[in-house]
């Protein structure tokens, strides 16, 4: 140290003297803002250095912090990715469980509903062949399964048992080329033979060309094969091609649409009826209106009329009420009511006409049976106001049949008598 100072003694002294004088200047001089130059110089000298140091510190700190954060982010990313994968698998598992539970529930419901004696079984394996349409069930001869038994699901037939082992059984699916079953169409009861093709669709053979089979129509088992009881759903017609002497009908089996997991083995089959095709304009059931709450007035029909016939009918009723005439009473030759008297129009908000007590129940339930077939049949059987046109007295055009009150034949909301 001493050698160093001796070596640079002159320049050191020079720098010290100059520095001392610089300090002297700095202490004396003030700048335009009346700040001593020593402060200005100090700040000017220090701040760039501090800025550089801060930049270095911030950069280093940011670098390490970002690095650490990135490191953590990568770790978090890996952890979250793993958690996402786990949740995906769990979600898929739960979906499968829900689907399985739904199928099991449907299977139990079907098992309780059907008249045939069945036994639930699960598919435990599939056939080893590439084009194999064979599955193995977890029920075998030990459970009472025998060769030739039908295997179904609530959606449709699945196949038939071709081998029964002590603890398992082998089932040929409906799509197997060697599979065959008697089927009948739902609409026109066209009989054919369902055969597998090794594909997803099956073929219905021996359907004469003159028979009518529609696309979208359902086929059911006919019971002719002594394997499948009659009335089990088979599939939906997808393709119909004309041919001679038999037309080509392709059916998509409904029993295999959602995969095969849980099935029913038909131990003792009972034939059941093939459900009828629902009519296009099937009646809609309308429930009874809710009872009025305490203190609430029941809803009365307003008696609003729309057509001229309605107004004429209303007018005749008012005339009859004014003259104390009951339509339908009185034999031939009796005095008819005077239809020329003036009747004041009903007040607003009042019912247009008073209905007879006998008509009340009928009018109250008429709405719920408006579209039902029984209501239509009843309407046919009951005489209506239109029947008065066939009476021998043209002066009494609204004379109803004595078997049914006039008011009851015109329920609110229904077309008035013609």
């Amino acid at each position, binding site marked *: 140290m001493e050698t160093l100072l001796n070596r640079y*003694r002159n320049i050191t002294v020079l720098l010290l003297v100059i520095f001392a004088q610089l300090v002297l200047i700095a202490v004396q001089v003030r700048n335009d803002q009346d700040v001593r130059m020593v402060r200005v110089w100090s700040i000017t000298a220090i701040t760039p250095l501090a800025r550089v140091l801060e930049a270095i510190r911030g950069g280093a700190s940011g670098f390490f912090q970002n690095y650490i954060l990135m490191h953590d982010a990568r770790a978090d990313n890996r952890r979250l990715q793993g958690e996402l994968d786990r949740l995906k698998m769990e979600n898929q598992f739960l979906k499968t469980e829900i689907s399985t539970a739904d199928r099991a529930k449907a299977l139990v419901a079907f098992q309780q509903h059907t008249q045939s004696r069945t036994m639930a079984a699960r598919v435990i394996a599939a056939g080893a062949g590439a084009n194999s349409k064979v599955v193995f069930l977890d029920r075998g001869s030990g459970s009472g399964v025998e060769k030739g038994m039908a295997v179904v699901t609530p959606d449709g037939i699945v196949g038939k048992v071709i081998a029964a082992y002590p603890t398992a059984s082998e089932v040929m699916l409906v799509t197997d080329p060697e599979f065959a079953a008697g089927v009948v169409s739902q609409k026109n009861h066209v009989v054919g033979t369902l055969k597998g093709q090794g594909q997803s669709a099956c073929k219905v053979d021996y359907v004469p060309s003159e028979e009518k089979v529609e696309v979208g129509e359902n086929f059911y088992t006919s019971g002719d094969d002594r394997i499948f009881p009659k009335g089990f759903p088979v599939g939906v017609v997808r393709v119909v091609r004309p041919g001679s002497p038999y037309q080509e009908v392709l059916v998509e089996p409904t029993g295999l649409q959602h995969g095969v997991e849980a099935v029913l083995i038909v131990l003792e089959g009972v034939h059941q009826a093939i459900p009828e095709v629902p009519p296009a304009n099937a009646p809609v059931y309308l429930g009874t209106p809710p009872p009025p709450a305490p203190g609430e007035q029941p809803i009365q029909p307003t008696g609003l009329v729309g057509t001229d016939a309605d107004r004429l009918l209303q007018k005749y009723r008012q005339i009859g009420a004014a003259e104390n005439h009951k339509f339908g009473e009185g034999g031939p030759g009796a005095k008819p009511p005077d239809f020329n008297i003036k009747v004041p129009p009903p007040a607003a908000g009042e019912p247009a006409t008073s209905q007879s007590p006998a008509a009340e129940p009928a009018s109250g339930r008429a709405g719920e049976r408006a579209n039902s077939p029984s209501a239509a049949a009843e309407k046919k059987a009951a005489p209506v106001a239109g029947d008065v046109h066939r009476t021998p007295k043209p002066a009494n055009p609204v004379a109803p049949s004595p078997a049914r009150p006039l008011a009851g034949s015109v329920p609110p909301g229904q077309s008035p008598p013609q």
Partner: protein
Amino acid sequence: MTEYGDRYLVGNQREQVSRFRARVMLAVPLAAILFQVYVPRFLEFLGYLELPLLVTIYFALMRRSQIGGLFIGAFIGLAQDSLSIKQPLGMFGIVKTLVGYFAASVGLRIDVEHSVIRFLLTFFFYFFHQFLYWVLARGLLGRQIPFEIQLTLVLGLLNAVVGVTLFHFLDKLREPA
């Protein structure tokens, strides 16, 4: 300049180092400063003479000591600052410190007894003095003063002429070897 170089040069020119009495070392600079601050009040054109600078150059050259030269320059400069109104202490001090240091450094290496050398050195250090003062005034004080090169060069020549004469006179004040 390293210590080894200084010792080598000093050893070779030890016999050329001029020595002055202490009262001369004090009186001459004071006289130069008094002349600088007093005479121009009556003879304004003499204000262009930088006698303190010339004295600094002379003692630094002749003493051939860098530390001695810088202290002489610092002393004369601070004294000049202290007698100058509106001049912060240190401005002339810094400038003359550097001039004394570099003048002594030059005096260690060349023969400064020759008049032409003295003339050139005086001219150069006057220009260096003026330029350094201008730089410090702008840099440290923020004063926007102009630097007139031609005037500075002319005044440098004038001061060099006066300096050669002054140096010849001051040589008489040296102690005999």
